[in-house]
């Protein structure tokens, strides 16, 4: 057997080692003949429980684990600014305050005893409760997950702790120039009292009580707004049977109004701003709101391609090559209901003016040197590859499809995105740039730090007078 195996190996080996006469190792990828990408997107099974809760399922027996996630349509997107502190605290307390019959410590001990992982988040457009456990622990682990979904205890003592931690996290902004830049830029771009620009105050955090959090849970976590994702080492029949036994009795409010994004107007304050601070570097944020671009836009895919091409292939490489910065770039920041074109980076105080000029120059150059075929190909490659990577595991597949449903995206959104990305042309990119990517009117420029030459050096940019901001001590 071994001799036969050796003979077979040698024959195969000879076949593998022959080269075509004259063929040499290529030194440039463009010289290679590569097969086209076989891009097929996996899709989960889509079904329903007896009470109408939708379930998406993807079976995978490679490893003996199961992930179950409840996705709930809810989020800060739908709330007025005065309710955002309560929502933030709810997000922190949801999986920290115990559930069902178990007080927090008992719940955590039960989770630890099973070696499982369970996490709840409440985000911008959805809330999720994810439980990851061994297949053998489903009997004990799934009820914990169910209790966290339906009956979180939101323990009052833990609420006190969550408040204190949130205050500490806010205070951490003050000595982090990057976080200061992000926080202040949002205030300037959107307005300090809008959902886009607001930062919690200590008062708003301390004003939240447990009743507020209970109300958030009661009105948000409803069967009609919930989709369940299940992935891993079990079959569909078992998955549905388990979910039925856990959730069949869950009857919520069937007459809920549709979720509507909280309507607010951006109160942008265009101009040039300096926030002084004793830091080694200067941090930069610049940008403006972009009209007519959201997640639902027909041009969403095009915007993503353009964003990568400009922000990374042009701005990042240009500033890097000049030795100006470790990570300056731009992007189209597209939310469910609005968008902005934003640049960010950091550099030495004696180079911040040059950095700003370089970014502006690179954006302006797009008019005469538009993104070319190679840049288009790179951008498409990055986005298509990212899509594939986001669907690599069974749970990734389920999570991605369920999130699309819960956030109101149309069926087949992933597939359509892939097709749309592949269909983008250089002409499209030129249109996208002219429509969304410029640093012209209504521009907000913010520098955090101590630029060499102070405010006067920023005035020399010719973007208008510089307003020196009065520092705010967040969290105090």
């Amino acid at each position, binding site marked *: 057997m071994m001799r036969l*195996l050796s003979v077979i190996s040698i024959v195969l080996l000879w076949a*593998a080692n022959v080269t075509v006469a004259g063929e040499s190792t290529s030194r440039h990828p463009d010289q290679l003949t590569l097969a086209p990408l076989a891009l097929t997107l996996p899709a989960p099974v889509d079904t329903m429980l007896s009470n109408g809760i939708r379930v998406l399922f993807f079976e995978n027996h490679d490893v003996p684990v199961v992930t179950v996630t409840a996705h709930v349509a809810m989020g800060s997107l739908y709330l007025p600014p005065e309710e955002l502190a309560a929502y933030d605290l709810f997000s922190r307390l949801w999986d920290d305050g115990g559930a069902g019959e178990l007080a927090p410590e008992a719940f955590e001990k039960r989770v630890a005893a099973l070696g499982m992982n369970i996490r709840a988040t409440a985000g911008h457009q959805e809330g999720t409760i994810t439980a990851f456990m061994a297949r053998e622990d489903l009997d004990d682990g799934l009820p914990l997950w169910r209790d966290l979904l339906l009956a979180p205890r939101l323990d009052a003592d833990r609420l006190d702790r969550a408040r204190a931690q949130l205050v500490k996290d806010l*205070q951490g902004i003050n000595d982090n120039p990057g976080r200061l830049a992000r926080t202040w830029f949002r205030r300037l771009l959107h307005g300090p009292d809008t959902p886009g620009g607001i930062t919690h105050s200590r008062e708003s955090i301390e004003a939240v009580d447990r009743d507020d959090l209970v109300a958030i849970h009661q009105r948000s976590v409803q069967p009609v707004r919930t989709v369940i994702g299940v992935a891993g080492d079990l079959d569909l029949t078992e998955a549905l049977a388990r979910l039925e036994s856990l959730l069949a009795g869950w009857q919520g409010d069937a007459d809920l109004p549709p979720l509507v994004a909280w309507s607010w107007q951006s109160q942008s304050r265009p101009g040039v701003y300096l926030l002084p601070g004793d830091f*080694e570097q200067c941090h930069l944020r610049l940008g403006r709101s972009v009209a007519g671009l959201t997640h639902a836009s027909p041009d969403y895919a095009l915007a993503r391609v353009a964003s990568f091409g400009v922000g990374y292939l042009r701005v990042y490489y240009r500033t890097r090559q000049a030795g100006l910065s470790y990570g300056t770039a731009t992007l189209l920041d597209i939310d469910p209901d609005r968008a902005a074109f934003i640049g960010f980076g950091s550099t030495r105080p004696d180079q911040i003016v040059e950095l700003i000029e370089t970014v502006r120059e690179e954006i302006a150059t797009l008019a005469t040197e538009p993104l070319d075929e190679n840049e288009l190909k790179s951008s498409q490659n990055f986005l298509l590859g990212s899509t594939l990577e986001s669907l690599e595991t069974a749970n990734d597949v389920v999570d991605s499809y369920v999130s699309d449903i819960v956030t109101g995206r149309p069926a087949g959104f992933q597939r359509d995105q892939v097709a749309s990305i592949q269909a983008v042309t250089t002409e499209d990119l030129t249109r996208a740039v002219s429509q969304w990517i410029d640093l012209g009117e209504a521009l907000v420029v913010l520098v955090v730090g101590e630029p060499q030459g102070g405010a006067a050096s920023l005035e020399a940019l010719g973007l208008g007078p510089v307003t020196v901001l009065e520092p705010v001590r967040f969290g105090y």
Partner: protein
Amino acid sequence: MYRTSPRLTVAGLVIVLAVCSCSSSPPESDHPPLFDRVEEYRLDNGMLFLLLPRHDVPLVSGRVLVKVGNVDNPEGATGLAHMFEHMAFKGTDAIGVIDVAQERAVLDTISRRGARLAELLSDDDVADSSRVAPLRRELTALEVRAAEFVEPMAWPRTYEAYVNNFNAYTSQDITVYEADLSANNLEVWMLMESERLQVPVFREFYSELEVVKEERRSRTEDNPEGAAGELLKTLAFSRHPYRFPTIGYMEDLERLTPGMIRDFHARYYTPANMVGVLVGDFDPDVARNLIERYFGDIESGPVPAGPQAVEPRPTAQRRGTHRQGEERRLEIAFPGLAVGDPRRPAADLLASVLARDKTSRLDRRLDFEAGVARSIWCSSNGGYLRYPGLFSITVSVMPERTNEEAEALVWEVLQNLVTEPVTDARLDEIRRSYRRSFSFGLQKNADLAELLVKRQAGAGWRDAYRRQARYERVTATEVTELARGLFRPELATVVYLEPASSEDETGGES
């Protein structure tokens, strides 16, 4: 017309033997079956490849591990390994170069003038002299001149068109070049990685040095936690090069030269000192063929020796304070264990007993009971892979509480490990969570590739699953004895991060 290459035939016999040897040894039991598919494929020049085919999605994760890190930097050249990693993205003479000869001539001039700059900067008497500034200007002008002969950022921009993402990192012990790509572009990975390992061109050195200095400013000088971590290493290691920051000290960065980069490449980037890892959707036969074609010609060389310095066991506690920003943070570290130390699994479990989840001892005492901590981290060896590192505990301290309070509570918890030992039942819980996490980490190609890289850099890739088996054999008594011997005040290094406005003076400072 087909021909066979004699070189490849010799390599082929090696492959036959490898295939034969692989097929005759039985797989080890009690580990995930996918590890049985890992093939070790070694070239004549000594370079090893680990190949793990998986066909769930048309993706491949490729890694090149180079067994060189910060510990290998020459004295006075901290940051060299990391700077080299940056230079490895500058390309070759085959992509984007308009005039190879002219560029090379200017780069040679830059190299000579750079050596002169380093000489001047090494001489304290002339460091601030009027000779340095003109030389810097000259180097800048030379780089502008060299840039005329090459398309800007041609190499990374070319690679970008074929991979989903590519990057690299340098740690204390290793340098890893990583790329994730669609399966149809495997040959691109082979080409680009082999070329830059064999024939890199170290262009744009001084502009990239500015980028690295920016990176240092953002990670350390403008980052109170980073600066405190740097102080901890400086105090905890008196002799071993782990005491130096991977990013390098600014004064050392200033003295780096293109010549040092070239020498570094020649010494450390030899095939026997490198490991390639491929995980994902590829045909092993095709992969081996490509590996031979692209990596087989790299000239072999000796495996360089690592640092010889042995860190002595501390005899007295070391303390320091760093003042910056507004927050408080506590770092406590103890001597770590050697790679092959049989107590390593117990050390990992001990770290989890202290801080893994909300039921861990430090979390319960410092966070939930005393309200002193915002977050707590604990590591059994600090991510060090080749030599004994640090068993470290980090506490982010809540406002209006003090580092002194946090430290007192940490010592209380550490002492309680002896008076109220951990139970086997608790260890069973932790082991159970390890098993889940381990299983979860086997799902993505990139995670698997990283796991193979990290283990191969230490005890060998099979440690990825053997380590899991060793955890099962650790007893509560072993964990307790380890804690008893380790958590002694005289073995500790303690660093406080205090607000810039604080005035207390304690011990070493930065």
